[in-house]
């Protein structure tokens, strides 16, 4: 189906039932969330500009492959839409502040098209994802970086407190709003209290950022442990990205001999333990070389060591690992990041 016959592609200048005026169609500029099924716009109301994802229901025509049911594709689309909408409502009621979720959901009716209903979701408009902000050209801005990571850790802690696991934390899903960072894209998250499209899957996020145990198909059976261990690793990987500019998985893969790589290894995860430990040791050493500030180096390395340990049972803050309760509690990491953030801010003031 060509775009001119598709309502989702022709919303420009339309006023939505809730008063939002569709001002501009946005071409894809980043790995925008959920954009596979959607068309993106900027919308405006009372001087506020927001970001809108209009769901292209007719897309099922182009993505239904021989052997796949059209109804299944449509069901996937509607489930994804509903899940993101409902999860956002759930989060907003639970005082989650560091996550960017749906501001408004609705359906626009656009006459003159074979399928005239366009479901949409409206979000706060971000300045971009953190890849736009990270600059390795000069002295790293430690205070900004640590504040951003702290924001993300707080967001993750808030989500975990209401038993939501994000599962897809990566640089393109950290959005920046007026100096504040928020976690974006709840579309691949899992919520214990809600039936989501991915609740039964072992991992729903981007495999590029997936923790090593999942790459080696070592799955913890306990849902809570598995999903929170994943989030824990993803936060650590994000810290690595902020300072080294590449993901933890890339760093780890770089230091694992090819024979033991996830695409080649045919043995068990247990057999790999010493080799992964060895690769992890060298990956941490390399991570440290990217940090120029001696007063932060050791503590950042330790944070990554705890968050990204390649073995989920050892992952998490050591005090949590050794005591009762969840190993993956974010509280201690949030506190640590807060201290580091303030340390970095203080040194700017002293300077």
């Amino acid at each position, binding site marked *: 189906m060509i775009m001119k016959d598709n309502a989702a592609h022709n919303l420009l200048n339309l006023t939505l039932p809730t008063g939002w005026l569709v001002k501009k169609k946005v071409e*894809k*500029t*980043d*790995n925008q969330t959920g954009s596979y099924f959607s068309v993106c716009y900027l919308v405006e109301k009372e001087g506020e500009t927001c970001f809108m994802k209009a769901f292209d229901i007719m897309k099922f025509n182009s993505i239904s492959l021989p052997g796949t049911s059209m109804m299944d594709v449509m069901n996937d689309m509607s489930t994804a839409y509903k899940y993101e909408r409902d999860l956002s409502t759930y989060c907003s009621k639970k005082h989650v502040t560091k996550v960017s979720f749906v501001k408004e959901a609705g359906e626009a009716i656009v006459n003159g098209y074979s399928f005239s209903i366009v479901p949409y979701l409206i979000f706060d408009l971000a300045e971009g994802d953190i*890849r736009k902000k*990270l*600059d*390795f*050209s000069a002295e790293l801005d430690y205070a900004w970086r640590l504040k951003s990571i702290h924001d993300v850790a707080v967001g993750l802690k808030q989500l975990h407190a209401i038993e939501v696991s994000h599962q897809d934390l990566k*640089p*393109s899903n950290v959005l920046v709003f007026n100096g504040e960072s928020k976690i974006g894209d709840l579309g691949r998250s899992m919520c214990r209290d809600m039936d989501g499209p991915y609740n039964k899957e072992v991992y729903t996020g981007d*495999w*590029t*950022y997936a923790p090593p145990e999942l*790459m080696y*198909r070592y799955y913890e059976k306990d849902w809570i442990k598995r999903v929170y261990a994943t989030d824990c690793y993803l936060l650590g990987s994000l810290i690595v990205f902020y*300072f*080294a*500019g*590449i*993901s933890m*998985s*890339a*760093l780890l*893969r*770089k230091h694992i*001999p*090819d*024979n*033991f*790589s996830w*695409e080649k*290894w*045919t*043995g068990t995860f247990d*057999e790999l*333990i*010493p*080799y992964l*430990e*060895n690769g992890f*040791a060298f990956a*941490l*050493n*390399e*991570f440290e*070389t*990217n940090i120029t500030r001696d007063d932060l180096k050791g503590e950042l390395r330790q944070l990554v060591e705890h968050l990204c340990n390649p073995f989920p049972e050892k992952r998490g803050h050591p005090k949590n690992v050794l005591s009762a309760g969840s190993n993956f509690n974010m509280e201690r990491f949030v506190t640590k990041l807060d201290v580091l953030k303030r340390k970095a801010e203080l040194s700017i003031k002293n300077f």
Partner: protein
Amino acid sequence: MANLFEHKDRRVVPNWRSFGKTTVLGELNSFKLNTEFSQIEPNIDDYIFDWQINKTVIHAADLLSAAIVNNKNDNQLINEAADFILENKNNASKSQISLACKILDKPIEKDLSERFTEINLDTLPSLINPEPVREKIRVTKELIKSFPYNPILYVELSRFYSIIGQERQSIKAMQTALHLAPNNRFVLRSATRLFAHFNYSNNEYLDFIHNILRKSPMTSIDPWLTSAEISIATIRDRTSKFMKKGIDLINSKNISPFNFTELASSIGTVELLFGGTKKSREFFNKALISPNDNSLAQIEWASTKDRQLDIDPSHFNVKMNFEALALDNFQNDQYDLAIDNAAKWFIDMPFSKRPIMFGSNLATIILKDQAKSISFLNAGLTSHPNDPQLINNLAYSLALDNKPAEAFDQLNKIRNVTGYDEITNICLTATKGLAFFRSGFVDPGRQLYIEAIEETNHIKNQELNWIAILNYAREEILIGSEYVSPVMDAVSKIPTNCNDVVINTLRKDVIELFEKHKQENMK
């Protein structure tokens, strides 16, 4: 008299190299042919798209991260992104630059043997320097401070200590590694080699490691460990309880030939020693489907017992097969090549005594080149500073080179002979006799040689007896003593069709010397 390289006695004890080299050689690969899990089908199109429209270092690095994690390096756009990072180094982090370099340095199969092409006996002395090893020990200890639970680091540390002959520290580091990873293949195989290496009659290292191997749950399923256990059991004159399991593993069709090559050669060795050559050949042939350097050397050794096994190791695409090549060169009378391959073999495994014994024996007895022999022995003494066999052989070469004072200097390093085996003690007695002969003190020299010969009779070691007689005969001929005639009577009783090339060479040399001596007397 030299302690001889034991051609008789080879077992498939795992070779021990650095973690990196062992990995590249594929000896730590999973032994299972296939994984039971389906492969993930990664898609990095989003990252390519982001890179194409943004063209920044960070987007390029994000794409490279996706490429390396998902093993999707074969795309022109990925090379383009890597180039972009290198062209904008000032805007990139160290890790981004290093990742770009890794991506552009396309993985080529590493040929570890390449580094050995320049190594021969002449370059050996320059490579025997304990200082770089001490530096590696320092660096490894620093790493251990950060990663005190990493067993690989302890194995590496143990190896470095073994290279400079620090037995106690080497054993201690390996025991820590075993404690941390008692079932890991790299740790267990390295430990097997170390404990076999430092096994003497006054310790129980072999019992210790055999016990660990027998108790490990991996020994019955991992062919690399089954092989190690069978070899240690054979050295201890025990019957391995894993023989049947090992045969089942080889026949299971679930394990690739490379992964069972050592196991097949271990079982082949047991069959050769205690069973039949037909069965042993069957296992050696299986080991040859995809051999490694250890199984190839074992079969080269076995071919001295079973002529039908005769192989040419250079026909197999096996990296670092210096031992097999040296043994093959030796069997084919290519002694200069054998010497150079022995030097490579030693540099590959600098803690090992076998290449030193092999090279020095060959140089001193067959090539009669004492300088070469001394060069090997000095190299070996770095990792075995107090080894009585090496000290004896060095003294023997020095004495033959008419440097009896230096020979005595070496022999004086040995204070207490009570802990040594009988053969070494006999050799030390004879070598002392040789040094006295070459110093001009004939009577004590003669007395010591006779003592050594009597001891060889006492322990009923005929070959050693012949070697002692031949060495003694040479010295009596050289001084033209009145005892030449009775000594030559004893020499004449040594069979001419002896299988031992060392005895044959010594015998031939003595007879030629005697003939020359007779002719000179006739003049």
